[in-house]
């Protein structure tokens, strides 16, 4: 027996379970590294998300404020009559305004000289605004009126850090000396930041007026588009899913439809734009840039998404429900429409809302059907016009701003993205609430 042990090859090197050898340590280190790679990847993904949101919020928030000059101004009847008799009427109003401003500054203990030109650089043509107001509201004459006048886009930029003393070059738009005046006015609270309602409710402005640009009109355009998408894609999507999930026999046609749906879900959105251009505009001569056409294109694009999610929620309804309905004498159609569909409805609605959210943010197809070349200058008049008249949509409007040369429009583009994301967030939260509240686990 001792022979046998003696003849056996080199005994295995003894290793302890308590102290690990070099190879185990290496393997354990590799394990740790691998785990760290995974964690790093996730953290990087989340970091990108954070960076994205921080840069959106930081660059977009200034779009919601604007710089205004807040002045209490009194115009007497005599002054009004005198000014109206002048040859240059708006000039007369400007002079009165400047005098008033000067008084207010002196009263608050500041003395700084400025002329009409400086005021014009800061506020644009004040006289015109004042004159219009008093001509329209004669009753305000002789009473103090609070005016909130929008500052020019460069002064606005000075407050938001786009324009600084170091980089500013004297030009007819803004002089370095004007900034002293701005600082003085800010000190006494005449120039200040206010919420920019124009941005939220207004329409797009021309390329030369970034201050007056707003996203309101394109929100309305997007809204009409989403109505078209909802009205068309929900019934069609549900009908198609019911057929495929409940009635379709295993045959060539069904296979063809299934293959088509899964492929359409992955077709680039720009191809749907080409389809819309060729079919709806080139062939059917529907109006260009209309929310109706945009809605039709987005419907075709969203249908696969809605069909896929609807089928999933139909599938999750247990077969016992159908069997029970069939057992008490319902027809197949009745079983589906009276029992399966209502139970699947929360899932269907969730899928539809998510599909709508996807459609709301889609830009590329809209570029092709002409929702970009158009500047949405006003709201549509009436409901029918809302569908057929040219309008913009939120993402198309953002693209238009991003493509403009003037840097001040970038701020508007970021602000537009905040509005867009706010809508998307609301829709997704509604979808999540719907799912939480009504989802049933069988």
């Amino acid at each position, binding site marked *: 027996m001792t022979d046998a042990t003696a003849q056996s090859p080199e005994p295995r090197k003894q290793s302890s379970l308590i102290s690990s050898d070099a190879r185990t340590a290496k393997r354990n280190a590799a394990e740790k590294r691998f785990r760290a790679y995974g964690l790093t990847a996730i953290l990087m993904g989340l970091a990108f998300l954070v960076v994205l949101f921080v840069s959106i919020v930081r660059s977009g928030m200034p779009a919601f404020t604007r710089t205004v000059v807040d002045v209490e101004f009194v115009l007497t009847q005599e002054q009004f009559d005198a000014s109206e008799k002048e040859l240059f009427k708006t000039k007369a109003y400007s002079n009165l305004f400047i005098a008033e401003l000067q008084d207010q500054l002196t009263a608050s203990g500041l003395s700084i000289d400025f002329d009409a030109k400086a005021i014009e650089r800061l506020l644009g043509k004040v006289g015109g605004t004042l004159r219009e107001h008093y001509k329209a509201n004669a009753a305000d004459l002789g009473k103090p009126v609070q005016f909130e006048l929008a500052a020019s886009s460069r002064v606005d930029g000075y407050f938001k850090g786009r324009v600084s003393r170091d980089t500013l070059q004297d030009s007819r738009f803004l002089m370095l000396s004007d900034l002293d005046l701005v600082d003085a006015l800010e000190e006494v609270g005449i120039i200040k930041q206010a919420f920019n309602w124009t941005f939220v409710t207004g329409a797009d402005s021309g390329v030369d007026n970034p201050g007056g640009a707003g996203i309101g009109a394109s929100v309305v355009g997007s809204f009409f588009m989403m109505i078209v998408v909802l009205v068309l894609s929900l019934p069609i999507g549900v009908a198609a899913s019911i057929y495929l999930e409940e009635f379709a026999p295993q045959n060539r046609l069904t296979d063809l439809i299934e293959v088509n749906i899964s492929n359409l879900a992955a077709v680039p*959105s720009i191809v749907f734009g080409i389809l819309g251009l060729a079919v709806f505009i080139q062939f059917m001569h529907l109006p260009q840039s209309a929310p109706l056409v945009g809605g039709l294109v987005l419907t075709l694009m969203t249908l696969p998404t809605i069909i896929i999610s609807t089928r999933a929620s139909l599938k999750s309804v247990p077969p016992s429900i159908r069997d029970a309905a069939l057992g008490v004498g319902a027809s197949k159609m009745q079983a589906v429409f009276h029992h399966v569909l209502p139970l699947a409805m929360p899932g269907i609605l969730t899928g539809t809302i998510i599909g709508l959210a996807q459609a709301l943010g889609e830009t590329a197809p809209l570029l092709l059907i002409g929702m970009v070349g158009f500047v949405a200058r006003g709201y549509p008049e009436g409901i029918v016009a809302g569908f057929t008249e040219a309008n913009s949509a939120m993402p198309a409007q953002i693209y238009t701003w991003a493509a403009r040369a003037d840097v001040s429009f970038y701020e508007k583009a970021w602000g537009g993205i905040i509005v867009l994301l706010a809508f998307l967030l609301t829709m997704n939260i509604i979808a999540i609430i719907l799912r939480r509240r009504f989802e049933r686990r069988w």
Partner: protein
Amino acid sequence: MPLLWLTLIVLAIAGAGYVLGRSRALASAGGDSRHLHSLPSYYGANVALKSVVPAIGVMILWLLLQPLYVGSQVSGTIPDSAVAEGSSRSLVMAEVRRTADGLKNAVALGEMTTEFATDPDADLAEVTQSLKDAGQIVTADVTQDILRGAQKYRAMNATGYFVMSGLVILIALAGVFFGLRETQKEFRARNVVEAGLKAILIGAASIAILTTVGIVLSLVFNTLEFFRLYPFMDFFFGTKWAPSFSGRGGASDLGILPLLWGTFYISIVALTVAVPIGLFAAIYLSEYASPRLRAVAKPLLEVLAGIPTIVYGLFALLTVGPLLVKFFGDDGLGWMQSGTAVMTAGLVMGVMLIPFVSSLSDDIINAVPQAMRDGSYGLGATQSETIRQVVLPAALPGIVGAILLAASRAIGETMIVVLGAGAAARLSMNPFDAMTTVTAKIVSQLTGDADFASPEALVAFALGMTLFVLTLGLNVLALYIVRKYREQYE
């Protein structure tokens, strides 16, 4: 809008038909619904369906066909002399259509009397002037032929809509009549209604096929048209992309190679970002993460896929681009001329693609049977060794499928490259150069241009066709691989 009213009228007729059908069925059974074959509502629904479906069907068909018919009729009346040199009949027709719309709107605004708008001998200068006064866009002075054409176009359309309205209402009424005639207690209303409903369901499902057919047809016809104007070989093998919009059909170089190169280069950069991050994230989420971390991190990563691409585009243009210029621009390494470059678009697109890779890979790794892992642990492998040597090889086909899907996404992505990659088409190896892609050029060739006669506009359809075929091939391959893999473990 008369269409809205027409639809409402048809629906009202159908509603009346429903009530009548229901009460007629009940009356035929002596007021006792137990003697009926079907529930009373099915008799009503039968009548309503018979009136709505044919009426709306005829209306849609008519609306589709009328513009074609009227267009060809009016186009036939325009003499060849009216088609100017270098112009085409379709351009003249577009002018006719615009003028007709202008006349309609001017009358609607009250700027023009109906008599004046329909007077074939009206003074041309006066017509042009009053159209302009009414705020209608008139590109050039209206010529006699165009005015005649526009007036004929208007008249024919008006007659067409009138006839259509009458016909549709008649069909709706006839449907109610026929539906009511067959309504009596033995009539199998439920079976008929359900068959009709099923036909509607099949119709809805077929829209997917119709969409594909529509995409293919609109691409094929315009692409063929393009190849009639521009040589096939020059498009696919040309190395220069320089469309000239000034000289129509002039010396444009429309070679697709620089665009394809830009597309692939950007996609490769994007995938180099997305694949490692996405894959490692998927591995960590499915193998290591606690349920709580998973419940938080997975939806958060998927938020990246839910953000609209215009947001990424702006992010590339205004945040990533300037940042890269700071490091690689003239002040730094000097490799980069401007913020828009392959690197800018590629990096941002990579971020967008992370969830596409991670979510699908996660599902696929989860589908690998636990028994395979347990076998590996039993042999003494560590967790990472198991993942590398057992789980990943088993999941590889599915992961490849996921990466192919992400690649197809990258090739078809538009907004990021439109805003982030620049507009210059060039064949360069430097990832910090501005390049452009197939999708970006589709946008720039088609935006705001309603005239499809020039090769410069038509080329977009050929580009679209190339894009469609490429992505379709990738998708089919990816879906095939993923499906094949799923079957393996089911």
